[in-house]
């Protein structure tokens, strides 16, 4: 007779681990099953080159929810967050550069070189962003209310959201509703005139999106990216993987069993209820609840299978827009690169953003729209070894580059043959702003959207487990009607970025899902 398990968590990404830790601390017997041999999923640090520790997925923990850190005592389990004073360094084609700091005044001083008007408006902009993200933040740790059931619990949920938005004040509440569906370009045009500034800020709006800055809803993504604070750049000491290690440590300390190299082949469903999983080796593990941090399509089509699903629900899952368009290129460097317009190495401590204008970004999207890799890439580079020398051998540096747009579906060619040309193109683009950088490269590693699908389990390489467009947010995430972490299959839950509130290293979906699972388990025990 096998051991009795309450909850099986599929996937040890940061959301799966968060859910596991919360449930284990709640007294449930939890087992986490991870396919790969490292923890963290897309929040992992791996040795892709000998001697280097590379963040193969996410780079920043700026959006990590304080409540998750506190509730799980992550600092006690080794989590160390580092706020960088510099958020963004944006070199320009003319040899100048714009640096944005976490400090509003300091940023305004930099902006003043471009436009006195914009510099004067920046503090008010920062204040508005703070108000708007405050309203967004109030929805992060709530299960979205059920729109169709008008029971008191659901109404209370809505009332809570409504009240939070209402409390913003009349003007701010209207602004909130007006801004969310806007293109980030229009939103920034309302505030600023300087193109380098608008481009440096606006690029955040297309994170994980197959949309350009003129796409509706990109203003919402821009705000989402500022949840931790406007122009905040926060990393994890030891790399993103250290966060996942801390989460796993918290889970294990509460009694959870976290297993790597345990790929799940399918979720076992009996009489419409999830009863456990079968591993690829054939072993069966049964549990009272199965909580999947894999994305909705992979969970429901890949692990459950369409025969268990009602066709209308299946259609909703099939219609989720994934549209991965992000790749990463990692470079081992024999020294620190020098960018045009750079005055000190300190400026390279945040993101180095190659996106000189919103039209540049729009044209990069145009290529992707027709199934091509952007001719002129939008790049976000970081040099994590600058702040944390343990990530590279002494004297060497690690350059991690997030690359957009690289559409999952290429109209011509395939990602196998495009991988190395993409690496060349990334380097050539960087060299335009950091002459001589090619000579520093000692090794490189490129991850394409296809790699993210095949090795990290992200459907279509979508870093957010489904694009975060307005049509796939809140009550419509992951699919309309099923935003409360449950699925039509009893005892099967979703706790990954495909669920509300979405992607990024927040911990929120895992945290929220765990609460719902615990509620149901307690109710069924009664």
């Amino acid at each position, binding site marked *: 007779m096998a051991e009795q398990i309450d909850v099986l968590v599929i996937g040890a990404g940061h959301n799966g681990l968060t859910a596991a830790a919360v449930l284990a601390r709640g007294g449930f017997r939890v087992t986490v099953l991870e396919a790969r041999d490292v923890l963290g999923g897309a929040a992992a640090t791996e040795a892709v080159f000998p001697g280097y520790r590379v963040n193969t997925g996410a780079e920043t923990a700026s959006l990590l929810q304080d409540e998750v850190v506190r509730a799980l005592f992550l600092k006690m389990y080794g989590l160390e967050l580092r706020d960088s004073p510099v958020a963004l360094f944006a070199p320009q084609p003319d040899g100048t550069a714009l640096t944005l700091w976490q400090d509003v005044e300091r940023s305004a001083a930099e902006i003043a070189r471009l436009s006195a008007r914009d510099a004067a408006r920046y503090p008010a902009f920062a204040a508005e962003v703070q108000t708007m993200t405050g309203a967004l933040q109030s929805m992060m740790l709530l299960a979205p209310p059920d*729109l*169709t059931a*008008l029971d008191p619990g659901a109404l209370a949920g809505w009332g809570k959201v409504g009240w939070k938005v*209402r409390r913003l004040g*009349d*003007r701010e*509440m*209207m*602004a909130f*509703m*007006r*801004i969310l*569906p*806007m*293109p980030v370009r*229009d939103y920034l045009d*309302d505030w600023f005139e300087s193109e380098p500034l608008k481009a440096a800020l606006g690029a955040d709006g297309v994170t994980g999106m197959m*949309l350009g800055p*003129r*796409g*509706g*809803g990109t203003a919402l993504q821009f705000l989402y990216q500022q949840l931790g604070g406007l122009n905040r750049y926060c990393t994890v000491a030891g790399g993103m993987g250290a966060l996942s290690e801390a989460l796993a440590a918290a889970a294990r300390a509460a009694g959870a069993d976290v297993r790597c190299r345990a790929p799940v082949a399918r979720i076992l469903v009996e009489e419409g209820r999830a009863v456990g999983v079968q591993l690829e080796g054939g072993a069966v593990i049964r549990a009272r609840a199965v909580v999947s941090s894999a994305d909705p399509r992979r969970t429901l089509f890949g692990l459950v299978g369409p025969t268990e699903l009602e066709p*209308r629900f299946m*259609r*909703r899952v099939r*219609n989720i*827009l994934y549209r991965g368009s992000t790749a990463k290129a990692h470079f081992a460097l024999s020294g620190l690169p020098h960018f045009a317009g750079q005055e000190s190495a300190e400026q390279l401590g945040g993101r180095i953003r190659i996106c000189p204008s919103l*039209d540049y970004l*729009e044209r990069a999207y*145009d290529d992707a*729209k*027709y199934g091509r890799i952007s001719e002129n890439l939008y790049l976000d580079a970081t040099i994590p070894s600058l702040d944390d020398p343990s990530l590279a051998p002494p004297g060497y540096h690690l350059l991690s580059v997030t690359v957009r747009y690289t559409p999952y579906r290429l109209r011509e060619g395939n990602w196998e043959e495009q991988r190395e040309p993409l690496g060349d193109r990334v380097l050539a683009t960087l060299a335009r702003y950091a002459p001589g950088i090619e000579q520093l490269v000692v090794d490189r590693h490129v991850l394409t959207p296809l790699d993210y699908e095949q090795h990290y389990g992200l459907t279509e390489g979508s870093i957010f487990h489904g694009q975060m*467009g*307005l*049509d796939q947010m809140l*009550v*419509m995430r992951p699919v*309309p*009607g099923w935003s409360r972490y449950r699925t039509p299959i009893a005892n099967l839950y979703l706790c990954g970025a495909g669920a509300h509130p979405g992607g990024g290293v927040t911990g929120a979906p895992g945290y929220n899902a765990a609460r719902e699972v615990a509620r149901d388990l307690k109710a069924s025990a009664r």
Partner: protein
Amino acid sequence: MAAHYDVIVIGGGHNGLVTAAYLARAGKKVLVLEKRHLVGGASVTEELYPGFKFTVFSYVVSLLRPDIVRELELPKHGLTILPLESTLTPLPDGRYLYRGADHWETLRNIATFSERDAGAYDDYSRSMYFMAKAVKYILGIRPPDPTSYRPRELWGLVEMARHFLALPEEQLWLLARLMTMSAADFVEQWFESEPLKATLSASGIIGTFLGPRSPGTAYVLLHHYMGEIDGAFRAWGFARGGTGGIAEAIARSAQAHGAEIRCDSPVAEVILKNGRAVGVALENGDTFHANVVASSLDPRLTFLKLLDPAQLPGELVESIRSFNTRGSSGKVNLALDALPELVAPPGPGRHLAGSISFSPSVDYLERAYDDAKYGDFSRQPYVDVIIPSVIDPGMAPPGKHVMSCFVQYAPYELREGTWEEKREAFGDAVVDALSTVMPNLKDIILHRQVLTPLDIEEMIGISQGNIFHGELSLSQLFFLRPAPGYADYRTPVPGYYQCGSGTHPGGGIMGAPGKLAALEILKDN
């Protein structure tokens, strides 16, 4: 001393006329002031060349609210709507997609492109029918103010929530997606064949400066489905005598109840006394006085030109300045010596009595948008053609024809050069595109009128030539249209009201803003 009126309506477009007609029926003494020599605004028919009558701007009708047609007795005042039953999508390679009155034929035609699409078509049509029914409610209400705690506003919100939450679950979710998706993504939930996807999603780009893959366009698609003629949703028609026939019928209905209409009377400003609107001054200096002034002009003109912005709350001025009125459409009106020949289907026939959509693929439309977003007109534009003289022979001399081509995209602001220099090149691009499916077109053109957004602005006044008086994007709809706190047809100036397409529920020959504004005016006066 000039006569004193109860209400002065600025602008004799269809919305201004609807407001005037409702107020006149309620016994008010109404004066309509129109700057041009004829009423109608964008809803006019003009004989540009002897014998050739053009629906110069707006060219089809569907959105006109049935309650307005009934209450203003428009048929009695001369309105006849002729059905526009089919949509033809010809392709340069000689294939074509014809969707007409015969349902089974339509399905067979779709099946020649995709069996799957033919199978999905009924489900799509039914879904859109339910969506149109679901939002019909919205067209008849004044948007409640969600920031207000007044019982009336709160009740309005509750009523609205009740209406939508009473929808079957599938419909509610579909509606939520319609409000937020791109038109192309929305139709791709059903279809795979390019001509069908493109022609359907083209309804989502009309009047907007967005491509079919831009989120928000699915709502515009729905906006074009909300039309009802004689209770049949999604029916499009052509007014006998052109769209001018609609304006004239409304004008006659207003006049029959005593409204006075003056053409050639451009208004320069609204006259205020003690902060209250008391009349208007014309450009020639003439003044007219009234208890109430209602502007059917677009929000920019209504607030920033007719009033002194310095007297308005700063927030409102800021909102109106950032109200997106980017014009994106042009119009090419052709007088033809004969009927155009299509590559397919050949010869004359009923397909020429419907609309002809030049929209071969979603990528084609998207590329047309790409040109425009960088400040050029579309080198290969999307064109929606109708041939009014086939539907209503009175529009052209015997044997001759008029052709109305609605074109996107034509940005109001060009990055290089001026519209004066580029107008004819734009016209050529349209004729070239159409010639790929109408080989004889160039040989039969007798006259050509090319209208750019700048021309639309100059001729009928609409800011930046935006045919909806402001984009129908989620940020500019309902209680945000035209500005937060001013979606109730009122303004900060007592006695001054808005009644044009820049207010809820927006553009198209619908009349709803005009009617809803009239009802609010009557409530206050």
